[in-house]
C-alpha cells in the first residue's frame, strides 16, 4: 500500500475521494487523461465498456477520467456517454456496475499530474490491473483494451507496452534513441517506451506512486516513459502486445520534436542516473515477451522536408558550439562539425558516432556540466542530423532493411556500453 500524502498536502480532491469511496475495491481500472476531448471521449468509453463486457464480464471495473480543465465539457460527456445495448440481451448490459468517475486536475494540468492521480486512484481502489487509454485514439477497439489489461490481470505481468503497425519513418526518436539505448543499458528492449496506451499492474503502479521524483520535469512531461523505464530497470515483468495500426499523423511539426526530446530523453537520462547501481551490473539484453503479432512497418509514400532538418542540424552545430564543447569530448565534437560541413548528399551520421554522442550526453547529464534541460535541448539539432542521415540512406529501403538497421544500431549501443561506463566514472 502506497503512502498517500497527508490531508493538508493531498493532491486528491475531497469530491474525488468520495467517488473512490463509492467505487470500492476493483479488479480493473482504465484511465483516460483528457483535455478538451469531448468529441472523441464517448467512443473511448464505449470501447472500454465493450472490452469489459466481452473479456472481463465478472471483474469489478472502473473507468477513470482525469481532466486537465477542459472547456468543452469533456467530463460531462464522459459521464453521460451511453453504451449501445446488445439487442439480444433484453436491454441488460454487464453483470456488474461499470463505474465511471471523473476528476479535474487543474492545479497540475501536466501529464504528470494526471498520471499521478490515476496511480493514486488505482492504489486506493486496489486495482489489480490498469490501463491508460488515449481519448483520441481512433483505432482503439475493445480487443486492444483487453490486450492491454489481460497480461497484468491474468498473467502476472507488471508492464504491458503496446506494439503497433507503423510507417517506416514514424517514431524515429523511439527507433534511434529511446529503444536501442534503453535496451543496451537496462537489458530489456521495449519498442514503445512512450505511448499513450499501456497497461500496468498494481505492484508497478504503487512502486511508481511511492517515488519522489514527481516534480521532475521528466516525469511531468513524459510520465509514461518514466514508468516504462522504471519497469525495465527494476524487477518488473514486462511484455509487449500488438494493438494494430498506430493512429496518428506520420508527420509532425518541429515543436513536437523538441517537446518529445525534452520529455522523453530527459526521462531516459534521469532513469539512467537514478538506476545507475542497477544497470552497471547488467550485461547484454534479453527479449521482452510479445503477445500477439510482432510490430510491423508499412511503407506508403510520404513527404518529408529533409532540407529543413539539415539546415537546423547545421545551424544547431554552429550556433551551439560553446554548449556542445562543454558536453562532448573534443574528438566527438570535431567529428560532428565535420559531418555538418559535408555536402548535402554526403551527410552521414554513422551509428558509431551517434551512439558515442548519446553516451557522452548521458555522462554529461550525470555530471551536470550545465543545466540538464539545456543539455537535453542541445541534443535536438544532433537528433535532426541523425534523422536526416537516416532518411537519406533509407529513402527507398524496405521495412526489413530498416528493421535490420535498427537491430544493428542496438548492437552498436551494446558494443559501446563500456564507453558509457568510462565516461560515467571519468569526472568522479
Amino acid at each position, binding site marked *: 500500500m502506497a503512502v498517500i500524502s497527508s490531508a493538508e498536502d493531498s493532491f486528491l480532491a475531497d469530491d474525488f475521494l468520495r467517488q473512490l469511496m463509492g467505487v*470500492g475495491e476493483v479488479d480493473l481500472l482504465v484511465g483516460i487523461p483528457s483535455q478538451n476531448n469531448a468529441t472523441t471521449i464517448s467512443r473511448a468509453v464505449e470501447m472500454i465498456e465493450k472490452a469489459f463486457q466481452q473479456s472481463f464480464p465478472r471483474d469489478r471495473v472502473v473507468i477513470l477520467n482525469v481532466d486537465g480543465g477542459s472547456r468543452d465539457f469533456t467530463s460531462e460527456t464522459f459521464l453521460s456517454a451511453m453504451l449501445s445495448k446488445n439487442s439480444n440481451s433484453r436491454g441488460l448490459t454487464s453483470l456488474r*456496475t461499470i463505474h465511471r468517475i471523473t476528476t479535474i486536475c487543474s492545479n497540475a494540468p501536466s501529464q504528470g499530474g494526471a498520471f499521478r492521480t490515476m496511480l493514486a486512484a488505482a492504489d486506493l481502489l486496489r486495482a489489480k490491473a490498469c490501463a491508460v487509454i488515449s481519448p483520441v485514439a481512433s483505432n482503439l477497439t475493445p480487443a486492444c483494451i483487453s490486450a492491454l489489461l489481460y497480461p497484468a490481470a491474468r498473467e502476472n505481468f507488471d508492464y504491458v507496452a503496446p506494439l503497433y503497425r507503423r510507417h517506416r519513418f514514424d517514431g524515429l526518436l523511439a527507433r534511434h534513441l529511446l529503444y536501442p539505448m534503453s535496451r543496451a543499458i537496462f537489458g530489456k528492449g521495449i519498442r514503445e517506451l512512450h505511448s499513450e496506451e499501456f497497461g500496468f499492474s498494481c505492484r508497478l503502479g504503487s512502486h511508481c506512486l511511492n517515488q519522489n521524483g514527481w516534480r521532475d520535469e521528466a516525469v511531468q512531461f513524459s510520465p509514461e516513459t518514466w514508468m516504462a523505464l522504471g519497469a525495465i530497470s527494476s524487477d518488473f515483468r514486462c511484455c509487449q502486445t500488438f494493438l494494430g495500426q498506430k493512429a496518428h499523423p506520420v508527420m509532425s511539426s518541429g515543436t513536437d520534436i523538441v517537446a518529445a526530446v525534452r520529455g522523453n530523453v530527459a526521462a531516459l537520462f534521469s532513469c539512467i542516473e537514478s538506476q545507475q547501481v542497477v544497470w552497471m551490473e547488467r550485461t547484454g539484453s534479453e527479449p521482452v515477451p510479445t503477445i500477439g503479432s510482432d510490430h510491423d512497418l508499412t511503407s506508403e509514400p510520404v513527404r518529408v522536408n529533409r532540407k529543413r532538418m539539415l539546415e537546423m542540424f547545421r545551424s544547431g552545430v554552429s550556433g551551439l558550439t560553446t554548449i556542445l564543447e562543454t558536453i562532448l569530448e573534443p574528438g566527438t565534437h570535431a567529428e560532428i562539425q565535420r559531418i555538418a560541413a559535408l555536402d548535402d548528399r554526403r551527410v552521414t551520421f554513422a551509428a558509431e558516432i551517434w551512439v558515442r554522442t548519446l553516451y557522452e550526453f548521458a555522462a554529461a547529464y550525470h555530471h551536470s556540466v550545465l543545466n540538464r534541460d539545456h543539455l537535453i535541448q542541445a541534443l535536438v539539432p544532433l537528433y535532426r542530423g541523425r534523422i536526416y542521415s537516416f532518411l537519406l540512406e533509407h529513402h527507398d529501403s524496405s521495412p526489413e532493411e530498416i528493421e535490420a538497421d535498427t537491430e544493428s544500431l542496438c548492437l552498436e549501443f551494446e558494443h559501446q556500453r563500456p564507453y558509457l561506463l568510462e565516461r560515467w566514472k571519468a569526472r568522479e
Partner: protein
Amino acid sequence: MQQLDYLQELGINALWLMPFFPSPLRDDGYDISDYTAIHHHYGSLENFKTFLNAAHDRGIRIIIELVLNHTSDQHPWFKEARSSRENPKRDWYVWSETDTRYREASIIFLDTETSNWAWDPISKSYYWHRFFSHQPDLNYDNPAVFDAMWGVMKFWLDIGVDGFRLDAIPFLVERDGTRCENLPETHAIVREFRRRLDEAYSNKMLLAEANLWPADVSSYFGAGDEFHMAFHFPLMPRVFMAVQLEDRKPIIEIMEQTPHIPAACQWCIFLRNHDELTLATVTDMERDYMYDEYATDATMRLNLGIRRRLAPMMDNDRRRVQLLNVLLMSMPGTPIIYYGDEIGMGDNVYLRDRNGVRTPMQWNGGWNAGFSGADPERLYSPVISNPVYGYQAINVESQKRSPHSLLSWMKRLIEIRKSSRVFSRGSIEFLQPSNHRVLAYVRESGEEKILVVNNLSASSQAVELNLQRYKGTVPIEMAARNLFPRIGDLPYLMTMGPYQSFAFRLRRL
C-alpha cells in the same frame, strides 16, 4: 394441521399447498390422476375441510395448486382418450401422427426429455407433453376441457379454498409456427376463467406461474381481468446474483424493466421454491456466473436451474440469509417463504430431480425430525441428517427456544412487514448512491414512507444517500424504533456492517 399454530405464530397469512391430489407421484403430485379428491397418503376430503376451517379460524388463507395444463397419464381422462381414436375423450388431449409438429416449442425438462411428443403404444400415435412424458397436455381447443377444469375449480372453491396457483399457465394452447407459449388464445382462456370466478365468488385469487420476462408476465394481468397475481421469476435469480457480485445492478436493472401492473394486481416474489432456481430468464453470461458461483458441482444443476435451498446457497451464512429475507420482505410484491427456509433448512443434491429441496420439514430433533411417526424407511424422502443442516441441528423446536434464532428473527421480520401497507402496496424509488454495494430504496404510499438500505457486500461500507426530498424527516429504525439523525441538506451518511440492512420509517416530527 397440527402445525397451523406454528404457522400462525410465524405470522404468515396465507398458505400455498403443493398438489395433494391422487397421483402416481412421479412428479411430486403435479401429475394428477384425480382432480377432486385427496391422495390417501394425506388424508381424506373431510380431513381437508377440517384443515381448511382451522386455517381460516387462524386468519390463514389457503391457496392450492391447480395444474391446468396437463394430467397424469393415469388420469381416467387420458386412459379413455388413449383407449381408442373414437373415444369421446380422445380430443381432450393433443394427438399427432408424427412428432414433427410445433417444432419451435422448446423442451422444458432438458435433463430428462428429448422431445415434447411421446409415443402412445396403445393408440399408436403421439401425444403432446410440455413437461414429463407421463404428463400429457390437455387440449384447450376443446371447450369440454375448459368446462371440465372450470368444474374442478368450482369444486374446490365451493369447499372454501381461497385461491389457485395455476401451474404452467403459458403452455395451455399450441399453434403451428409458434413457440406454443403465451398465445392470445391462452389469455382468452384465462380471462374466461377469471370472469366466471368473479361472477360466482368473491375474495378469491388466481396466481399465475409463468416463468417469463417481466414485460411478458405482465400480460397475464391483462387489464385487471386475468390473473390477480403472478410470480416475478426474473427478480429472484438476480437477488442471488447481486449478493454474490456485491453489486445492486442486477436488481435495479430488472426492476427498471418491470412494467406497471393494474392497481388490483400484485407480484409474487420469492427466494426459493419447490422447483429448481430457474435461470431461464437470465442472460447466458448471468447463467454461467450463477452456475460457477452457486452450483459448482454439476449435480446441483437441473433443467437450466439450480436445485438447492436458500441456506446452502448462502453457505449457511446467517447474515446473508437474513439480508435476502429483508429484500424479500421489503421489495414490491407479496413475499412467499418456502417451507423450511425460515429455519435455514438444507438440501440433498443426491436425490433425483428436484427432490433435494423437497425433504421432510424438520420440526424437532426426534423421530423423523417430527415429520412423521412412520418407519423412516417409509418416508417419501430421507430427512436431512448431516451435522450442519441435519434435523438435530436445524429444527423448529430448538429455534423456538431461542430469541436469537433465525426463526425468531423471521417472526420479527414478518411483523415489521405486516406493520405497514407500504411494503405491499407502496411505490418504490431506488436511490442510486455512488457505492454500488449498497441497495437503497424508498417505499411510499400516501404519507407513509419507508427507507430500506441494504449492504450487499461482505465488508463494511460507507454510503451517502441523497435524501433531500425527505429533508426534515426523522428516520426511525423499524426493528427497535430507535431514532436516527434528522435528514438535512447534506447527503445522509450511513456506515453499515457486512450484509447489514436497515428499514426506517421516515416521520415528519
